[in-house]
């Protein structure tokens, strides 16, 4: 089921949290909602979940407006906590599953299998506030997926996780995506999730600034850097043949070159090899952070132009 946000606008008093955000999340494609703190990610998620009514715009599922009943088949994990501290872990999941319409025995079965999947099988009767931080985070994920939802929305699920936990969580999410579920998560740590999500939506100050498949966006960004490892003190005069190539960083045994789209990086590599030994090389596409900064910079220029 494709999840879509169209022109969502949300004000809190004088503050504009969302200024016409558009977003599409496709099933089977792990999608990251990215942006710095305060960009409007959480507000966007709360609007999509129906926790708050937007001032304008709508949330669509397969092209039609999302209703209360649709959200019974959704799972939501809010940023940190989201659990009853005094409730036993297993009961918590059973309760969440039943709220989403499962009957008691079905809910209990599902809760047991999710607890097992998340490595919490022996913690069924333990009170939530007695669990370690890492276990609480896993249980919280369990609460969002216990009813096997079609749509899974997670707010900053990777924040504060150690590398092992990041890996476990991404495996769990990828399993759902592979099974055809619609999964979207938010993050402000752009480079942490760079390799986790296939598709991204970047928002800044309540607006969508960049959206699409990560691979396409990086390839189309026009920003490529050729990294060359050279003998210490090797001359750089061969570079004169490429007037459009600029030097981004120059060290004694390496050089980082900015390659514009119309220049073939292989030609540059060949020229370097012709001039002397190349000990190491690589073509780096821009990081998500760099792409974000580019997108925001462009937008800033654009709005300045509009005001001029």
């Amino acid at each position, binding site marked *: 089921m494709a999840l879509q946000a169209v022109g969502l606008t949300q004000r809190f008093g004088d503050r504009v949290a969302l200024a016409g955000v558009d977003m599409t999340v496709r099933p089977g494609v792990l999608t990251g909602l990215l942006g710095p703190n305060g960009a409007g990610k959480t507000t966007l998620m709360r609007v999509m979940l129906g926790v708050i009514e937007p001032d304008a715009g709508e949330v669509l599922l397969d092209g039609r407006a999302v209703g209360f009943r649709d959200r019974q088949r959704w799972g939501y994990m809010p940023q940190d906590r*989201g659990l*009853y501290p005094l409730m036993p872990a297993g009961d918590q999941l059973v309760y969440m599953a039943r709220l989403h319409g499962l009957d008691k025995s079905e809910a209990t079965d599902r809760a047991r299998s999710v607890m097992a999947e998340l490595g919490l099988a022996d913690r069924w009767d333990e009170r939530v506030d007695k669990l370690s931080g890492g276990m609480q985070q896993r249980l919280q994920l369990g609460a969002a997926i216990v009813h096997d939802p079609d749509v899974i929305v997670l707010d900053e699920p990777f924040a504060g996780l150690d590398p092992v936990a990041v890996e476990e969580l991404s495996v769990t999410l990828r399993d759902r995506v592979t099974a055809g579920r619609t999964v979207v998560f938010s993050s402000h740590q752009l480079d942490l999730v760079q390799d986790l999500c296939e598709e991204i939506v970047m928002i800044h100050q309540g607006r969508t600034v960049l959206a699409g498949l990560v691979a396409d966006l990086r390839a189309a960004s026009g920003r490529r850097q050729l990294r060359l490892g050279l003998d210490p003190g090797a001359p750089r005069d061969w570079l004169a043949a490429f007037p459009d190539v600029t030097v981004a960083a120059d060290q004694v045994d390496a050089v980082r070159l900015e390659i514009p789209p119309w220049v073939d990086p292989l030609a540059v590599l060949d020229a370097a090899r012709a001039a002397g030994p190349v000990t190491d090389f690589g073509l780096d596409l821009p990081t998500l952070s760099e792409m974000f900064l580019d997108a925001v910079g462009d937008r800033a220029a654009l709005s300045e132009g509009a005001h001029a």
Partner: protein
Amino acid sequence: MSTGSWWPGARLVAGRALAEGGSSKSWRIVTLLMLLAGLAVAIVPRLLGSQTPQYTLGVVGDVPAGLSTQLQGAAALGDFTVNIATYPDAAAAEQAVRDGDADAALVETDGAGTLYVSADGSATFPAIVSQAVLADRITTTLQGYGLSATEIAAIRATPPPEQVPVGKVANEGRAAVGMVVGIVLYLTLILTGTTIATAVATEKTTRISEVLLAVLRPTQLLVGTVIGVGVLGLAQVAAVGVPAGIAVLTGSSFDLPTAAVGDIALGLVWFVLGICVYAFLFAAMATLVQKVTEVGSAILPVNVLLIGSYLLAVIVTIQDPNSPVSVAASLFPFSAPLVMPVRWASGLVPAWQLGLAFVLAAGAAVGLALLASRIYARGLTLSGRRVKLREAISG
């Protein structure tokens, strides 16, 4: 929205609140204390023994058979017992009264007699003895005039004027029950309200409310929480009320009229109405907090209303249940749950006023629930800071 889909969600919420609250140590302790208090009402009077007054009449020589019959008849009517103690002479009988061994001593000499009474004792028993002696002598005199036993019985059947007590309350014992009902209601309403407020604030500050609001309507969450915690409160009221009510009914508790059972039952009804009036307000105010520790100050306005009503009930209404202030306070929806049960126990309240108080409280509860659910829905979603009440209402 059909009831079919609304109620299952609200019931789940209520069930969870009930399970969590019921397993908490504080609820169990308070309920146990309430139960012990209720059982004490039933058991303590038995331990204290009979409350029937006992009087001792000192006599010299034989007591006339007629007088003895008269006294026993009066004792049966007045719910007391009379012992007869015989002394050798008038001086010994007089001394017995002086020492407090006898409540009165009758010394008869040929148609005239002397009744020794304690100078600082109650006048009730001497008056009863005097009347019995008088009645006995009149009977003897009438027999002397040749009247038949039937005629004498007819004369003696002349009823005394009926006595009507005209105090501020119909029965002091019942009024005391009313006051206890007021105290129990106050304690349980405050406790239940605070529990609801804490539960709501916990849900908001842990962001559980966000997960819940994605699948539940705010009214399901609000009503479910109020029902769950409200049932726990009702159980506490019942823990003290049911044993006490049974004790009154079976006559094992003090000297209370059975009407007091009605006062206790009415207390349960007013608890439910009180919850309906107050609980939604407690819940709504609790959504304005940013941290659980702010609950106390957030619900202060509601607590002030409750405390004010309680003080009205135990200070003003107990003193004068039918003063204009008491009547008004027993009808006003915010104070009625505490003032009306206390006032009703005075036994001097017209039934229509109780009915009117019910209707007004129920109507106010509906209005307050609607207002509260608006504040509740807004308050839960405004996070990151302390929310102003005006903002939550107008937004």
